[in-house]
């Protein structure tokens, strides 16, 4: 318990002293995870909606692959992105391995299946006749999709929250493709692992608590948006 209280005290001290390194790590964590979530939201929600609304041969296989992607370990996604971005790999010429961009790419690979899988389920869970009803109200195809997205906004926001939760808490991929470089690619999770490995449990705990507060803050914001204007 002493260790826990020491951790809380250290976290508080680091926060109120506006420790530059901690602030930069926290901001980078927020930046890369928010950007990865945003990209995943665009690809995942739109892709998931397209899959849910269309009929094509092999649809079940595609949905199964997306659902499998929801459970891919971050370290595997990190390994894949590392190979792709390695100097001799297909995208090696861009020289973005061990940069924040590489972390965004790896985290996008992790979050997209999560967002897409939940989006597919959310749209498929709407009454099938609702599409006909929307069209019968005179909607164009685009208006119909927009109204369906509005109708599924609760699970879709949950999908985005799951995506953000999945990437802000992962460490394997960020470590592999970012390299945990001080002041450049070090994020809260990689810093926590590093401090823990050094035996600095109070600092590790402090970073973990900051991560929890950050995650809560973002999820609270998303929840406020999710629950907004819901009539009683």
């Amino acid at each position: 318990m002493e260790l826990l209280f020491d951790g809380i005290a250290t976290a508080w001290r680091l926060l109120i002293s506006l420790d530059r390194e901690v602030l930069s790590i926290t901001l980078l964590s927020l930046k890369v995870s928010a950007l990865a979530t945003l990209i995943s939201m665009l690809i995942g929600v739109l892709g998931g909606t397209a899959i849910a609304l269309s009929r094509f041969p092999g649809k079940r296989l595609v949905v199964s692959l997306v659902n499998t992607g929801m459970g891919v370990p971050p370290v595997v996604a990190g390994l894949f992105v590392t190979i792709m971005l390695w100097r001799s790999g297909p995208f090696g010429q861009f020289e973005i391995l061990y940069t924040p961009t590489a972390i965004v790419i790896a985290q996008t690979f992790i979050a997209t299946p999560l967002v897409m899988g939940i989006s597919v389920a959310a749209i498929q869970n709407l009454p099938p006749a609702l599409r006909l009803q929307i069209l019968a109200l005179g909607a164009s195809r685009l208006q119909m999709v927009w109204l369906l997205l509005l109708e599924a906004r609760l699970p879709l926001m949950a999908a985005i929250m799951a995506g953000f939760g999945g990437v802000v808490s992962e460490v394997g991929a960020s470590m592999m493709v970012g390299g945990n470089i001080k002041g450049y690619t070090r994020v809260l999770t990689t810093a926590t692992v590093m401090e823990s490995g050094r035996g600095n449990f109070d600092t590790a705990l402090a970073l973990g608590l900051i991560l929890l507060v950050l995650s809560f803050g973002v999820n609270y914001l998303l929840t406020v948006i999710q629950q907004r204007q819901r009539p009683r």
Partner: protein
Amino acid sequence: MIGNAAMLELEGLFVKRGGKRVLDLPLLTLAENETLAVIGPNGAGKSTLLLSIAGLLSPDSGRLRFKGKAIDLSGNTTAYRRRLTMVFQDPLLFDCTVEENVATGLRIRGIGGKELHRQVDLALERFKITHLGRRSARALSGGEAQRVALARAFALQPELVLMDEPFNALDPLARRVLVDDLAHNLHLAGTAAIITSHDRDKVQRLANRVLVLDKGRPVQYGTVDELQQKAHHPFVAAFFGG
């Protein structure tokens, strides 16, 4: 067809699903202000007919003319669909307030501001649900929800309303009251309508003419009186009590 010129003309409408005929209707016309009831046993093709007319289902073949203009049901039907609307058995309301539900079709047409509020208020008033305006659509009874669905449809001032067994889920009392209000609103708006139903009283109350379908084909067509006097099909005899 009665009285005025035909607003809707269907010719050679043929729909099949899974290689099986679902609907084969050589000819159907509907006059302005006319209410046509489509009756028949389950699987007769009633819903398929309504979906085809609504532009929500592309038939295998057939021609449709609406107020003299040919409509390509296999192409983009958005402009045509904005001239009519359809109410389903399930009210299919959106997860928002009653007012927002009624406003949806108007917003789709780009109507906003005071005009939107005026039309929404009028539709709510006509279906006697003004007091429910701010309520969540999820918190309504079956009868209230169906009133909202009808208000949402009539708010659009459609030239034709298609109704696919819209009262089936209601209890007899709610059904009777709502049918009266619907008849009043159809008369008030002068809107043509096609309604499918399993309810004789409702058909008698609302319809000028009746089309009887069985296994996708028309088996009798005429006024309610004509069908009551001379049934050409066992279903008609059973429906109107012999």
